């Protein structure tokens, strides 16, 4: 691990720029986290000062980014052999591993402390659990050991709406658990679609992703199963009163389209449907939360 990064570092001069540190925060992953965290704030009953709501979303974003930086520090050896990740700041030698770790830990602590002091300690505790879960449970424990890595580890990415909700209410309620479940069950088909067309990368890195361990056919069957389970779970926000009829219709249509994607992937012998499903999965989650928030902001109220 160290040999690879040291060799790369020696070949690279100039040091890290501020942009390299921003890249450590995985801005693209962060954008979805910010969006779902904001959804939690918008959908929760009760009132929060707009500035404190902004601080809550900022803390969620910084906490997610910080755990991403620590993940890059820990995974620098496998990042160096995967095409998708080889240009990241650590394997390309632009940032020293210790710098990334220090940066990640500092921001993690800062995001939790600010959340606690400015918003409330329930949201701060949930944020701390999210960061800890992503680093210790997913990155360090599960990722290299089991093909269920992203199934269980997916919980880390599912926490943001729950944190946003807790920022307003100070509690963990059934609707926020449903929002958590929605992202939790969406994660396996989303990541396995990526793993199907990046299979070579994961095999080379020795990461036991489902397609590498169980084979493509078994993975595709499980992806279909998860999209089917998602259908009623995605509709559930309507039944607990945090979403309206428009959301119910949109979730049914998008859910059926997601199932359709999984069926096409199951029947396919090439990568194309998997690539399409990966793209659609991002749109699917984005639209569900956008419609939920849109309906809430336009119609207002809370059942």
């Amino acid at each position: 691990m160290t040999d690879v990064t040291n060799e790369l570092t020696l070949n690279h001069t100039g040091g890290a720029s501020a942009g390299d540190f921003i890249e450590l925060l995985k801005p693209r992953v962060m954008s979805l986290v910010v969006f779902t965290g904001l959804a939690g704030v918008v959908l929760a009953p009760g009132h929060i000062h707009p500035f404190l709501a902004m601080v809550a979303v900022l803390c969620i974003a910084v906490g997610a980014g910080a755990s991403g930086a620590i993940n890059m520090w820990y995974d620098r050896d496998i990042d160096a052999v995967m095409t998708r990740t080889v240009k990241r700041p650590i394997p390309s030698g632009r940032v020293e591993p210790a710098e990334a770790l220090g940066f990640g830990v500092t921001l993690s602590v800062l995001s939790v402390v600010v959340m606690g002091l400015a918003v409330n300690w329930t949201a701060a505790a949930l944020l701390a659990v999210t960061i800890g879960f992503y680093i210790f449970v997913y990155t360090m424990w599960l990722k290299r050991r089991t093909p269920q890595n992203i199934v269980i580890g997916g919980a880390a990415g599912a926490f943001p709406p729950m944190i946003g909700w807790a920022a307003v209410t100070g509690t963990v309620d059934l609707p926020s658990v449903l929002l958590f479940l929605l992202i939790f069950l969406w994660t396996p088909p989303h990541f396995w679609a990526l793993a199907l067309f990046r299979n070579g990368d994961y095999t080379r890195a020795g990461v036991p992703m489902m397609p590498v361990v169980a084979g493509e056919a078994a993975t595709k069957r499980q992806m279909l199963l998860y999209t089917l389970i998602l259908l009623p779970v995605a509709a559930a926000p309507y039944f607990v009163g945090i979403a309206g009829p428009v959301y119910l219709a949109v979730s049914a249509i998008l859910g059926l389209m997601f199932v359709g994607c999984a069926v096409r992937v199951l029947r396919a012998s090439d990568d194309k449907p998997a690539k399409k499903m990966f793209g659609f999965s991002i749109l699917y989650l984005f639209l569900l939360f956008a419609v939920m928030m849109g309906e809430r902001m336009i119609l207002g109220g809370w059942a």
Partner: protein
Amino acid sequence: MTVMERDDLTDTRTSVEEQRRQEADLRARKLRGRNLAVLAALLALVALFYAITVVRMSGAH
């Protein structure tokens, strides 16, 4: 050693020095950028804590 070989050596030395100078410039530029980013982050943090205190003390949360 011929005169031509000596000229080649001088050229090589000059280009190595030039490369080092460029690398030093690049490093200095990046360091300056990083320092400015840290300054901006610290100022933003101060402003953030100030605003949080004002909002919380006003009891508007």
